[in-house]
């Protein structure tokens, strides 16, 4: 279901970010785009509101794997009270970090798929957010000889790639990125 009133949501995000920039003292500019055009390779991630940051404090946003960027994004999503399965409709990006991370995850998915094929054993990723797990699930959705599952709870929930007809025998797991 699309965000009911995107303009109102964008205005709310703008109010929030104005506070972050002025009261938080962060030297950032930002641009909010409703229904942004998206390149083809992002066909499975279609944000309805895109926020792009620039400015001297971009590096602060991107430190530790974009911790602050994701924090600001989460606060905006919570303010808009979007249900969990609609979080991807809001996307905060800075210096193309999102695109680079998507490419990194897709590459990791390809490497994991090859390893599972070669070894016949499952491949376990390190814990990731639900958004990032979804990207890996979707990157491997057309691989008929594999299947993917999320396992574990909370902050330890991670994605595992299995050979399609895998019969468990112990836990010969490997960890990789992130």
């Amino acid at each position: 279901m699309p965000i009911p009133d995107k303009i109102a949501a964008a205005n709310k995000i703008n109010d929030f970010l104005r506070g972050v920039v002025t009261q938080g003292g962060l030297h950032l500019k930002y641009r909010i785009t409703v229904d942004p055009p998206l390149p083809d390779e992002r066909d499975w991630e279609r944000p309805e509101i895109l926020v792009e940051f620039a400015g001297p404090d971009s590096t602060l946003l991107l430190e530790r794997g974009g911790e602050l960027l994701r924090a600001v994004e989460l606060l905006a999503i919570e303010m808009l009270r979007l249900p969990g399965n609609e979080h991807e409709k809001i996307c905060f990006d800075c210096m193309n970090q999102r695109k680079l991370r998507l490419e990194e995850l897709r590459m990791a998915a390809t490497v994991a798929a090859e390893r599972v094929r070669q070894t016949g054993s499952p491949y376990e990723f390190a814990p990731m957010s639900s958004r990032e797990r979804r990207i890996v699930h979707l990157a491997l959705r057309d691989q008929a000889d594999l299947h993917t599952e999320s396992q574990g709870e909370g902050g330890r929930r991670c994605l595992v790639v299995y050979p399609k007809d895998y019969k468990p025998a112990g836990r010969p797991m490997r960890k990789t990125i992130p």
Partner: protein
Amino acid sequence: MGEQSVDVRALIEQIAKALVDAPEEVSVEQIEGETTVFELTVAPDDLGKVIGRQGRVARALRALVGAAGIRAHKRFGLEIIE
């Protein structure tokens, strides 16, 4: 965008009011010290909204407060009062 306009107490209050059901019950106290601590109080029923699942919202708030501290060349902390 100068440091003189930094008002982290107001920022926390603005965000908390947008997150909760009872914004009139949001208050933020600023306690000065080696680390400036901001104590956020919300209505008991709203605690979950400022803490979030597995503490994600609280962690995000702390990340933002910490970043504002870096810019203000001070140490800022956030406590959510239960």
